[in-house]
């Protein structure tokens, strides 16, 4: 939507005020409602569908392949496809690199290790089903999608199942191709339930004056002065911590204190978000139930 100058200044002033009055009366650290389902793609190892009430929807699939390298940048491939946008558009490319980098930085190579020589290669494909119709005419960018896609990736990775390896894991001396069990019932999780490793989550924080807000909506993005993308893993802030342009007008510099304020907020809300996502991933879904 395109806001009039009066609307802009109204939203700006209310966001800037000390009690942070948001357009949808959320608290500064409150997300919009999200819904998610998993395990609905029979042709993929892991899948998730996550969507917001405002219609942005993200479908993620994880497919695994076996290759003979341990270079993480080859083992993890993320591709983002946004309906109505070219594959090589800056938005798609930026989202892909953001996610790839954040995953590679913290990924535990051991989870991908199959045998001494062979590793799993993961292809993470993300489809954004539709973008708002007024996207072309408006000043907000869609970088707030980063947080939605990272949650989708988190769920998809959490629910990724791989067939059981039947050959031995020790193939340093012997030339042997890994072989797998045909039985899908005996498949194992890529990230086992006991493991401490968790994929990195990315949070998008908007900055207005001295205030920071999580998960800015479209209207709010139009008046934001700045935005941060902050990674969160195992109760810690992890790279990337980066500034992102959430709107193309009114960019202003930010102070050190707002950056720390944003990081503190992410630290505070990160754990409940992880908990909620884990609860969704633990739910039992039937592949043949319709996810829609």
């Amino acid at each position, binding site marked *: 939507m395109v806001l009039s100058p009066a609307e802009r200044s109204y939203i700006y002033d209310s966001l800037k005020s000390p009690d942070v009055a948001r357009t949808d009366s959320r608290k500064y650290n409150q997300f919009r409602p999200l819904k998610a389902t998993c395990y609905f*793609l029979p*042709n993929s190892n892991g899948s998730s569908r996550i969507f917001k009430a405002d219609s942005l929807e993200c479908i993620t699939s994880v497919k695994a392949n076996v290759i003979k390298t341990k270079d993480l940048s080859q083992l993890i491939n993320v591709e983002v496809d946004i309906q*109505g946008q070219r*594959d090589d558009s800056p938005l798609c490319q930026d989202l892909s690199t953001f996610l790839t980098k954040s995953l590679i930085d913290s990924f535990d190579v051991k989870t991908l290790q199959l045998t001494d020589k062979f590793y799993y290669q993961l292809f993470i494909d993300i489809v954004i*089903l*539709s973008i708002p119709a007024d996207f*072309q005419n408006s000043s907000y960018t869609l970088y707030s999608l980063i947080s939605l896609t990272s949650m989708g990736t988190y769920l998809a990775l959490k629910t990724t199942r791989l067939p059981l390896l039947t050959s031995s894991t020790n193939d340093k001396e012997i030339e042997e191709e890994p072989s797998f069990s045909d039985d899908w019932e005996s498949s194992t999780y890529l990230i086992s339930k006991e493991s401490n490793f968790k994929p990195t989550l990315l949070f998008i924080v908007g900055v207005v004056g001295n205030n920071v807000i999580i998960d800015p909506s479209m209207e709010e993005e139009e008046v934001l002065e700045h935005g941060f993308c902050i990674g969160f893993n195992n109760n810690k802030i992890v790279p990337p911590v980066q500034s992102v342009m959430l709107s193309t007008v009114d960019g202003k510099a930010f102070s050190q204190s707002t950056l720390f304020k944003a990081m503190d907020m992410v630290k505070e809300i990160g754990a409940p978000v992880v908990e909620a996502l884990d609860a969704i991933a633990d739910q039992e879904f039937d592949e*043949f139930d*319709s996810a829609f």
Partner: protein
Amino acid sequence: MSRLELYSPEGIRIDGRRFNELRQFTSQLNTHPNVSDGSSYVQQGNSKVICLVQGPMESLSNTNAGGASKLDHNGPILSININYPPFANNVRKKRMRNDRRLQELCVVLKRCFLKTIVSKNYARTVIEVNITVLSMDGGLLACCCNAITLALIDAGIALYDYVSAISIGLYNQIPLLDMNTLEENDLSFITIGVVGDSDKLNLVLCEDKLPLDNLEALISLGIEGCHRIKQLMDEQVRLVGTDLLSKKQ
């Protein structure tokens, strides 16, 4: 010839069906009420397809070039777009956005639906159809066609009747209804779309060689299958319709 036994001497196919049995058909309407005017989800066996319809509207939503000059005075401009993500098939394969096979399918679907939509009601408008294939296990065109029919109904666009489509293959003189990927890879098949409960075909596509003397058997089995699918879609539409009506009161 494949090493798989596609049709056993007892008359059982590779997934346990008889020659004239459909796969499980599930459909859902109005799945994305906020982003589109009409939306649907169709699942035939392991094939899953989402369809979003925008319109009727004055100009294409995402192209700035589509001005009023391009509009048709006699009927709607139908733009159909199939999005085939790399994960939809069993083996991951990236497709170009202008993949020729997909574009051909779009043209076939467009011709079919221009005859099905009551075009005089939609002069000088644009109807945009976006299909996303989530998972494909045979019957791409048939799934897309069924999904578009449902999404158009959900969008409230006037149609003369349902178009329901199905693929039928040929195995040694025996027609097989609703093929899956394994069967499609080895056998030649034809996809037909039937208008409502009639015997009229609005869509026929055959990309393989088929002996002409078997065509009639294939099409008559296909028509039966289409009628069944039409029935299933109609049930779903009525279910959603009564649900909507009860909410309004």
